[in-house]
């Protein structure tokens, strides 16, 4: 997936000279996870820039440069550090267009990583896409496959709006077919049915799509057919395919890597209740991380994170 991302960046930079890439270790080193590998050599130090470890000004410079005509793709090494840039992201990127009556555009992508599963302990393992998705004025997208990563990142870069592009850090080594077409774009705010099924609707995004697909595969051996829908975008949130599916299955499980309280599952479940109340055959299930700061110990960490067995259990609970 790291290659899909660097490919998307390179194709877009080739197309549009106003695109600049910057962040901690993105240039000379090619990115902490190799997602910007080769860009510095190809496009030079004027377009691909290393920054000091200063998340506030990384995000702020991105907003200022976007206001003044560039299309910055800023990288914040981890979403846990994005808290240090939270003010720029939610108070500036998300509001600069509306608060000045539309005078300023903010065509900006902030790429960052999220997720647990690497024994990095509590402050380096969070999956808080939903916090950013709370704010009107921002878009939030989190890909679940290398191909999606390429198509969605290219779309994000071409968008005239500020977008948080959030990559689950354990997925960089994931393999998959990626289209060569330099105009392969996936639309803003469109979710994607990743598996068809008639019995239960599973809604997930990012890494939890893979977890849900594994569960669905397992369940299929027991003749339980799950539909797996990848939200892709947390804002704008496209739930039409979810409602459509739910009207057939009458049952749903929402899977998220983060904590359930005030989370994506809460939002999706509430919308299903609002839109599909008459179709409801069972309470909507939420699979999420246990409500604790994630511990370092590998076994404890695994225990706290959602896995296919948790999804299977949730599906069976409502059949």
């Amino acid at each position, binding site marked *: 997936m790291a290659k899909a991302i660097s490919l998307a960046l390179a194709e877009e930079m080739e197309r549009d000279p106003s695109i600049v890439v910057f962040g901690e270790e993105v240039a000379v080193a090619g990115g902490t996870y190799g997602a910007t590998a080769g860009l510095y050599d190809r496009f030079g130090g004027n377009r691909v820039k290393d920054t000091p470890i200063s998340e506030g000004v990384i995000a702020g410079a991105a907003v200022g*440069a976007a206001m003044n005509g560039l299309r910055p793709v800023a990288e914040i090494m981890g979403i846990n550090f994005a808290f240090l840039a939270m003010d720029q992201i939610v108070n500036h990127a998300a509001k600069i267009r509306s608060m000045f009556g539309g005078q300023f555009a903010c065509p900006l992508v902030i790429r960052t990583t999220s997720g647990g599963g690497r024994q990095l302990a509590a402050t380096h393992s969070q999956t808080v896409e939903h916090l950013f998705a709370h704010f009107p004025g921002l878009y939030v997208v989190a890909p679940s496959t290398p191909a999606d990563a390429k198509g969605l990142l290219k779309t994000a870069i071409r*968008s005239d709006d500020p977008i948080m592009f959030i990559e689950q850090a354990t997925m960089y080594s994931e393999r998959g077919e990626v289209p060569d077409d330099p105009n392969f774009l996936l639309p803003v705010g469109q979710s994607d049915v990743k598996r068809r099924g008639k019995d239960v609707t599973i809604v997930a995004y990012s890494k939890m799509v893979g977890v849900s697909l594994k569960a669905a595969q397992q369940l299929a051996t027991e003749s339980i057919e799950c539909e797996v829908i990848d939200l892709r975008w947390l804002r704008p949130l496209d739930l039409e395919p979810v409602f459509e599916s739910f009207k057939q299955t009458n049952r749903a499980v929402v899977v998220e890597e983060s904590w359930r309280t005030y989370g994506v599952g809460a939002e999706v479940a509430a919308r299903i209740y609002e839109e599909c109340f008459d179709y409801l055959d069972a309470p909507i299930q939420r699979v999420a991380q246990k409500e604790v700061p994630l511990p370092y110990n590998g076994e404890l960490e695994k225990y706290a994170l959602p896995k296919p067995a948790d999804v299977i259990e949730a599906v069976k609970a409502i059949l």
Partner: protein
Amino acid sequence: MDKAEMLKLYKQLVVIRLLEEKCEELYQKGKIGGFMHLYIGQEATGVGAVSARRPTDNVITAYRDHGIALACGMSPRAIMAEMLGKATGCSKGKGGSMHLADKRLHFWGGHAIVGAHLALATGLAWADQYRGSDAATLCFFGEGASNIGYFHESLNLAAVWKLPCIFICENNNYGMWTPVARASAVIEIRQKAAAYGMPSDSADGMDLLAVRAVTEKALAHVRAGEGPYFLEIHTYRYRGHSMGDQRPYRTHDEIKKWQAEDPIGQFEQVLLDAGIPPAEIDALDAQAQFDIADGVQYAEESPAPALEEIWTDIYAEPIG
């Protein structure tokens, strides 16, 4: 400076003073809402510095932004309409007192999160540097902002990237109600620039010509590609931090001491010394009065934004 320029700048000072007094009155009448921070006393800082720029140089400031907005060439009409929350306001009634801006004038706004716009300024400057333009960015902020992380991150990045940015600290001695000595480990704020290897200078903010002179020097440095520059301008706000501030934290003697140095009175003397007849100055005062009255009338008669307007300007495409 030629005579026409002197007259123009004098009028700007007076327009700012009168606009602020009018805003104070309209606020007390309940016509202006929210937080409002007046620039009275600091006029020569904004006018002096901005007068040294080219029209393509960027200006960005904090929430005490009315004076800088006028110095950048915004009209009392666009400002007053914004104050009253009208559809004809510069930000369509969505920003208010703290969020005036006019992109066409390269005035990138008042910003109300202390210190955050220093980071925006680095981005503005970077975009111009990237395009190979010789435009500079003038970033105004109060001395209170020098204690926040953004200040240090922004000065450091600007120095590392040699950005064409002038950081202009308007040191008015108080961060809200707290005197600088109780909030900052050094009271000479420009010392902080030295930590980033950034050259600096200071000037008396009650003296328009002194402010203009140091800004010209800073602009020459920045345009030569020598990287950022820091200015500390010593000034004073006659009014409180914001409306409703009763000023118990400072004495009337202190306020009077500064008022004796009034920037408008000082610059008027410059005009008189240059042989400009008092009648010509009086005429400018009258024009300024007229401009403010016209701005208020325009704002009063302007329509409120339609309710449907809330769905616009959030993204490139309207929602809802």
